[in-house]
């Protein structure tokens, strides 16, 4: 009976610990000046260092989406420009930001969880605390802030390169000219679309970094625990990205 209760309540306990950790991080905001260098370091690691992989994924997503849309709409009665009007909003609203979120859940989330988890099991977090430092302010806050600030930047890069990839493959592959593509994109462009993408990017940035920090910060059981935290951080981030994606689509579109 007690193990059943434990099983039922463990998600609630996890949610409680996660909320407390985020509240402690928020309460450390007034100390952020102390951790400036840490914040900039994380912005580089999470943001700048991720540009190549995010750009690659964006370019291929845009290119493949263009080819597949062209294939599905192959009809003399459908103007070719419609391809641009499908690819561009799809990239802005969904594809680039979700693909980017999944990639960064692995690249950024797993790295953060492994880094903090190793610091936990090797007592480096305890060492920070006994020096009188606020370990949450020093480790968690800069990572979460960097995620929230840099994911939108990566989204813009991913989206722009993805659309560019679509234009290039459409043009050089003979599916649609660049002019037709851009005409289609302009025809159905809604200013809210990129704004919606930015909202998603901020949300996903928070999800990936906060879950990774939570999993890493509360790691136990040595090397095995670090491995578990890393895996759980990546998997949970992907799950919550999907959940948040649906919630945002239902509420904001």
């Amino acid at each position: 009976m007690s193990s059943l209760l434990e099983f039922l309540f463990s998600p609630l306990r996890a949610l409680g610990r996660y909320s407390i950790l985020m509240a402690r991080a928020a309460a450390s905001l007034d100390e952020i000046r102390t951790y400036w260098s840490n914040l900039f370091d994380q912005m580089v690691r999470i943001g700048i260092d991720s540009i190549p992989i995010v750009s690659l994924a964006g370019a291929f997503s845009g290119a493949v989406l263009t080819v597949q849309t062209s294939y599905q709409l192959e009809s003399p009665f459908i103007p070719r420009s419609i391809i641009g009007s499908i690819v561009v909003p799809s990239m802005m609203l969904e594809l680039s930001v979700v693909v980017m979120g999944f990639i960064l859940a692995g690249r950024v989330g797993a790295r953060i969880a492994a880094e903090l988890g190793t610091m936990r099991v090797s007592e480096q977090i305890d060492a920070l605390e006994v020096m009188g430092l606020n370990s949450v302010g020093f480790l968690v806050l800069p990572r979460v802030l960097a995620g929230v600030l840099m994911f939108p930047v990566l989204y813009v890069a991913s989206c722009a390169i993805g659309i560019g990839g679509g234009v290039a493959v459409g043009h050089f592959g003979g599916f649609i000219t660049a002019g037709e593509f851009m005409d289609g994109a302009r025809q159905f462009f809604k200013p809210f679309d990129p704004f919606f993408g930015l909202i998603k990017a901020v949300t996903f940035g928070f999800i990936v970094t906060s879950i990774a920090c939570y999993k890493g910060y509360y790691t136990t059981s040595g090397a095995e625990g670090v491995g578990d935290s890393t895996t759980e951080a990546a998997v949970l981030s992907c799950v919550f990205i999907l959940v948040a994606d649906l919630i945002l689509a239902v509420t904001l579109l």
Partner: protein
Amino acid sequence: MIRIEHLSKGFGSLEVLNDISFEVRDGETLAIIGRSGSGKSVLMKHMVGLLKPDAGHVHVDGRDLCCAEYGELRKLRKRFGVLFQGGALFDSMDTFDNIAFPLEYFSDLTSSEVEARVEECLSLVNLEGVGAKKPSELSGGMRKRVALARAIALEPQYILYDEPTSGLDPETSNTIDQLISHLSDELNVTSVVVTHDMHSVLTSADRVAFLHDTNLHWIGPVDALHDRPDPVLDAFVRASEYHLGDPSASVPLTQDS
């Protein structure tokens, strides 16, 4: 002074410490000994507020850590230097930056003063010239000495050592023990040494607290160990690699034959 009052701690159904009370007097070196898993490190972590007791209190200079707000706890922790079992050096930083880290956050020293202080700390632990090395490039004994240099960088009032000689060869262990004694004499700090190494105890401690079966089984001056004051304690001491030799001898321990 650190005063522990009726401290109890458990993890789930496992009781680790039960109604522990004692005090660490200013300027002394207290060794906490006991078998592996007897709660020595758990007790030490209570002294800096890294763990909260299930019952009881920990007073540092009259302030109860258990009731202290987080901000006050952080201020109190600045009076401590802690040598963790594995050193707990920051992997991403080299030796110099590890030692300079607390100075950069908690002192008003200029960069040249920080540099001088780091060199001074390294020379105190006999490790001049390793500032550029990463922790992964250092041996176990060197890592512990660098961690000790970091622990003393801010000239703490209290230094806590968690298994300072575990996993080290006898010669390096001797060096660490001598460093502990030297730092206690040189810096006049109050020290708590958590260990099961009797050589460390006899070399560096003034008093000994023995944990057994979740309780504080015995506490007294280190010299009293020679009188075999308690059969359980005596069995623990005799079970170690060494037993007590002639206290007047220059080497206080003899190899058990």
